[in-house]
Structure formats: structure tokens, C-alpha cells
């Protein structure tokens, strides 16, 4: 069903259907709007703000904003890119993202979106927060240093696995991921490596054990081509599972 309605993304006409967000229609049309907390399989969350666009002079998140006929949307001006870069830089300095020591490196969406926006430095002062690693589960480890609070694991565990293993606790800068078990440890929760929640993390926070560094440098997901061509990490996780 087509409604004949379109909006303009950087001057290009994108058709949409009633109820679509800007992101829904762009994804369907193969147009890339950078994003981290969005995954088309889940309810939009609008928390990372990386999908910020300028719609008729207003800044909005593309993943939560309903598309309207004849919207004029700026998705790639240097001004929009620099705002996204600043958001990414804040994500990098708030956590401990040590790319050279991370097994997700090269196939990490945070990294790939940062490459896409030409982020060369963290710019801000690093927080170097004290965070832990939870390796209590037999098949999956959580490195809280790398969590960006996108809540994709929270949504997957709640909406698909119906287990509610994950939640975000605290407020503001104290927000952090927690695990629903008596000890707070993943190994004592009902989490399984076959859960949807085990395969949606865009960064290296929720990582499968027993299989790190299988792909050599040069052959990893984002080594050769940028994310606007390659697509999201989660889309490729499913390929690998099959």
C-alpha cells in the first residue's frame, strides 16, 4: 500500500506510509540515518540522539518522529554531523572504550558510526569511570565499561524473550545497566545465549564467550566499508547465527 506521501531527505524524495517514523521510511528506502539505540525490530527508544536531523528548522530524533508529507530534512550537513560527533564523543568519554583491547573492535557500531561522522578525537575530558566485568555466565560476559545504555538488551529481553533480565537503574550520569537476579550476576539470572538479548548489543558490552578474535583485522564487519553501506551490527549477528 502506498500513500503517495513523501518527505525530502537531503533533497531526495523518500516515500512513507501512515504511521512511519522518519527512520522507518529511510531504512525501507535504503537511505542511511546514523543511529545506535535504534533497531527496526524493537519499539523506538530515542535515547542516544545520534539520529538527530533538522526538520524544517527543528532538531528531532529520526527514530521517534512520525513522518509528515513534504518535510524538508537535513541529514548530512556539517552542522548535523558535528552535533552527532559531539554526542559520540560524550559516549566515548563517559565509558571506558579501549578499542585496541576490545574483541568487538572492527565490528562495533559505536566505532562505525564514529568513523562515519569523522570523529578523530574524544575532544572532552575522559571520565575513566570505575565499572566492572561480569563473567559469571557460562556462555556470555558483560563488560559494563562498554555499555552505552541503548537499552536494546532491555527491550529484547522484555519484549521478545519475555524474561526481563535487564534494566537500567539510577538517573543521569549514575544510570547503569543492571541484571535481574538475586546476586545481580548474569550467571544467576535466567539469561541464555540463545536469547534475543544476547544478539542485539551494538557495542562490546554483552559478548559471547569462547569465540573472540575469530575474524582477522581487514576482514571484520566495518574494516573495508562504512556503516551506511554495511548496515547495523545486529543485522549481521542474525546472519552468523543461521
Amino acid at each position, binding site marked *: 500500500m502506498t500513500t503517495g506521501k513523501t518527505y525530502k531527505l537531503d533533497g531526495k524524495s523518500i516515500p512513507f506510509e501512515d504511521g512511519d517514523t522518519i527512520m522507518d521510511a529511510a531504512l525501507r528506502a535504503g537511505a542511511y540515518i546514523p543511529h545506535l539505540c535504534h533497531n527496526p525490530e524493537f519499539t523506538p527508544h530515542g535515547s542516544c540522539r545520534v539520529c538527530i536531523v533538522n526538520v524544517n528548522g527543528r532538531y528531532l530524533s529520526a527514530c521517534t518522529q512520525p513522518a509528515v508529507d513534504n518535510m524538508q530534512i537535513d541529514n548530512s550537513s556539517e552542522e548535523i554531523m558535528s552535533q552527532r560527533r559531539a554526542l559520540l564523543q560524550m559516549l*566515548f568519554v563517559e565509558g571506558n572504550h579501549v*578499542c585496541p583491547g576490545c574483541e568487538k573492535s572492527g565490528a562495533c557500531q559505536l*566505532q562505525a558510526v564514529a568513523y562515519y561522522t569523522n570523529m*578523530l*578525537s574524544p*575532544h572532552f575530558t575522559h571520565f575513566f569511570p570505575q565499572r566492572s566485568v561480569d563473567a559469571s555466565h557460562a556462555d556470555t560476559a558483560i563488560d559494563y565499561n562498554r555499555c552505552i545504555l541503548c537499552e536494546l538488551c532491555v527491550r529484547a529481553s522484555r519484549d521478545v524473550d519475555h524474561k526481563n533480565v535487564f534494566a537500567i537503574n539510577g538517573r543521569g550520569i549514575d544510570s547503569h545497566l543492571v541484571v535481574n537476579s538475586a546476586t545481580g550476576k548474569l550467571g544467576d539470572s535466567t539469561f541464555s545465549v540463545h536469547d534475543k538479548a544476547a544478539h542485539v548489543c551494538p557495542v562490546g558490552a554483552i559478548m559471547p564467550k569462547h569465540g573472540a578474535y575469530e575474524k582477522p583485522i581487514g576482514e571484520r564487519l566495518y574494516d573495508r566499508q562504512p556503516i551506511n553501506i554495511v548496515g547495523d551490527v545486529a543485522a549481521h549477528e542474525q546472519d552468523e547465527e543461521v
Partner: protein
Amino acid sequence: MSENKQAAKIRVATASLCGCFGCHMSLLDIDERILELVEKVEFDRSPITDIKTVGQCDVGIIEGGVANAENVEVLREFRQNCRILVAFGACAVNGGIPAMRNSFTVKQCLEESYVDGIGVDNPMIPCDPEIPMLLNKVHPIHEVVKVDYFLPGCPPSGDTIWTFLMELIEGKPISFPYQQIHYD
């Protein structure tokens, strides 16, 4: 004639602070292009020349983060003497692997290395006055001085370094092909 050529050369200084020298090794990965490079640049203080003090330079290239008192001193000297200062590699850009010690206190780190570590003989924390004092945390260099350019990578590849130096020398805007920028 040769003096004029010498005068026209760009003066470059390099130093490794809290790094592993991998970025300097990667500089050597420009291979035979180093012959073209030395036609265009004159090296001042650098592990390549073994000159120990930095003079007035056009470009200062810093590998490694800031982890001890000597690193702070060298970095400030570079900033005072170099017109353009470059953070070269992951450790200079964001602290890198050495900054993983920031999860622990200096006391914990020293005790693990020199007192409680596996295979330690004659346990004793080194206290020779010639050894620079460690800072409480490892910092990226932009947290200590103003930095003009950032080259991420662990290490940045020889090609990345070459692209950067050639564009800088020729006065072009700095930009890289996609595959030349990575954080690891």
C-alpha cells in the same frame, strides 16, 4: 643552494610518552617513502635522531599518553616549541591501553607489579629519584596541552601517517580514505 634547500625543510620533532613505540615503528612502515620524506622534513628531537632536547619546530608528533611527571614536562616542552602538535595513536588520543590502569590506584598497580605479582623476587617498590613519579591516572595529551591534530589508531598505519604528513606539508585540508582511520 643546499643551504636554501635545508632552510625550506619543515622541522619535525617526535616523542614517545606512555606508549609502546608501536606508533614510531609504524612511521617506519612508510618504507621507501622515507627517502621522499627526508627531502621535505628535517627531524629535530626524535628517537630517530637521538637528539635529547626539542628546538623550534613546525610539527611536533606525540605518541603515548601522559602517565608520569616526565611525560608532562616533555609534552609541555613540545607544546612550547612546536607550531603544530599532533596526537599520534590511540594512547595520545585517549590514553589507550595504559589508561586501563585508571581502574586501579597507583598503589595497587605498584604492589601488583613489584610486591605481590607472580614470580617477584626481592619484592620492593622502586624509589630511585631518577625514576619519574607516576600520576594518579593516565591522561590523553589533549587533557594537558592544546592539540591541533589527532591521528587515531593502534597504531595509525604507515599509509595514514603518510597521507597526514603529505597533506600537512602541502597545506591541503587533512582528510583520509575510509580504510585509513581506525581506533584499533
